[in-house]
């Protein structure tokens, strides 16, 4: 018998309510992701990838179906418990980095620890360590707009790692970066997956990027049309 999966999605539905009526985006999506997996999600624009990721990240709620994280039904949780999950279990990495523009890098990275109620000295020490690991130690006092996009994404990853998450969700993390920088970012994810056993789910449009993953899920029109190896479906 296998252990309970980290993520169990069954019959998930999502529709947006708009002025022009309801817009169904996800139709009956079911998916299991085990602890330690590295999953790439691909699919045409508008196929519902971001919608799916936001639900995985507890940033949005589904309109139907069931989502279990670490064996617990997320649908039953109140907003404080969801906040705790986002703080301790999930690290989210965005295409647009989403750093606080007026706070320096150190403060940005330490922010999740603030909401985890961790003392100031430990907070700053951990933030500095994370920045040093991602090669940005000397920019600790800089503001986000004083460093490059690749560097900002590294800071965002450092921030996602601050709460020691089991799961990293990255929605087009390399979408704004050139291919060389993209490779550097993907190397970081690969290392986190291989060395620390952190589960990684990332959305990308680029087959090259998907090659870093071990499993590929392809969305079309709110359905999963492929779930399996990266090689057969890429291209």
């Amino acid at each position: 018998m296998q252990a309970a999966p980290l993520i169990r999605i069954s019959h998930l539905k999502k529709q947006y309510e708009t002025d022009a009526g309801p817009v169904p985006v996800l139709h009956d999506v079911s998916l299991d992701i085990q602890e330690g997996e590295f999953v790439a999600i691909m699919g045409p624009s508008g196929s519902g990838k971001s919608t799916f990721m936001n639900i995985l990240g507890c940033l949005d709620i589904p309109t139907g179906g069931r989502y279990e994280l670490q064996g617990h039904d997320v649908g039953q949780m109140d907003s404080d418990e969801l906040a705790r999950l986002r703080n301790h279990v999930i690290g989210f990495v965005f295409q647009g980095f989403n750093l606080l523009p007026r706070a320096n890098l150190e403060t940005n990275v330490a922010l999740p620890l603030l909401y985890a109620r961790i003392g100031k000295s430990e907070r700053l020490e951990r933030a500095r360590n994370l920045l040093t690991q991602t090669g940005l130690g000397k920019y600790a006092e800089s503001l986000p707009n004083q460093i490059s996009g690749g560097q900002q994404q590294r800071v965002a990853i450092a921030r996602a790692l601050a709460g020691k998450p089991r799961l990293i969700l990255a929605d087009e993390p390399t979408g704004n970066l050139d291919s060389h920088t993209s490779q550097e970012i993907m190397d970081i994810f690969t290392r986190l997956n291989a060395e620390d056993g952190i589960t990684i789910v990332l959305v990308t449009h680029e087959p090259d990027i998907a090659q870093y993953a071990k499993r590929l899920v392809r969305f079309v029109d709110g359905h999963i049309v492929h779930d399996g190896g990266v090689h057969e479906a890429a291209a």
Partner: protein
Amino acid sequence: MMIGVMLGEAWHAMGANRMRTFLTMLGMVIGVGAVILMMAIGQGVQYSVNQSIASMGSNLFLVVSGSTTSGGVRMGGGAAPTLTLSDAEAIAELPNIAAAAPVASGTAQVINGPNNWSTGISGVTPDYLEVANWELADGYWMADSDVRSATRVAVLGNTVAQNLFGDENPVGKTIRIKQSPFIVIGVLAPKGQALDGRDQDDTVLVPVRTAQRQLLGQQFQNAVRHIMVQAVSAEAMPQAERDMNDLLRQRHRIRAGADDDFTVRNMTAMANTAAETAKLMSLLLGAIASISLVVGGVGIMNIMLVSVTERTREIGIRMAIGARKRDILTQFLLEAISISIAGCTIGVALGVGGALLVNHLTQTPIVITFASIALGFAVATAVGVFFGYYPAHQAARLRPIEALRYQ
């Protein structure tokens, strides 16, 4: 721990947009400053009015010569000397009257060696001390015999004593009033300002007959300027006033239908009116100032709403990495409260400074109480919480994804 960090963040956010923070605070500064200043002035006026009233004596009438209207021609109170010492004696005999103190007054130059001082001279009887609510600081008060024999003794008001004698004790010394030598037998304890702002201590009291015969050169030997009358109680005052009117009309042989040649003023009623007016003014000033405080609060709410809207993405980011609703609420509330308290502190400083300046420039008395400052702070905090809560609540209510998507 959390609060400390949040406060730091609040400072940071305030510093990040200085101009806006400053303008928001300005509303608070003006509001609180106005409240403190207005209350200081209002309470100052009330204080000095009450002080004057306390120095005045209770259940008091002032009877002056002349009618307010006489045959269509207005005459100043006390202009035609129609009241006499015997009027005063007759009033004192009335049932509801405790004492009647006639006063004959004028001004004169008072001299002690090289020092001279121009002041009001009042000729009075022994009853005057109590009726007018004076206390002796030193020496003796005049006796009935001083009035009867018109002796040349004088009791000095504090201001006169200061000006003629400085630190020296005037009791037993001789001064000259209109060339005549007077022995100083006593000095009055200081009273301060009267309701009309006059210095009550700038006076010299002498026996009434002495004043009439030697100092004032009256047309009618017995005439007095006014009579201070004390009723036995507050309840007895209306009856006492009627009795006095009847008595004086009879004594002055005024025919029915003709105007009085005297006026009875109820000083206690006037004092109460003055106190009421001062209180009302104080309240009005406070009310007007409070309005500016509320306007300041609305300013804070305005800015906080803008700030929440502007920072919706930031709120989304914070939520995405684990901030709870409560954390967001606390952050924005603290920001609002910090702005109000900072504004309030500056406002208190400006208000107190302004009050001191007003006092310095106009000599208006001011009263700054701990209560008015505490009130300012309490109101500012309340305004901060009240007007900060709505936008903070709006921010905390957002779902993370909605906040993140906000452009």
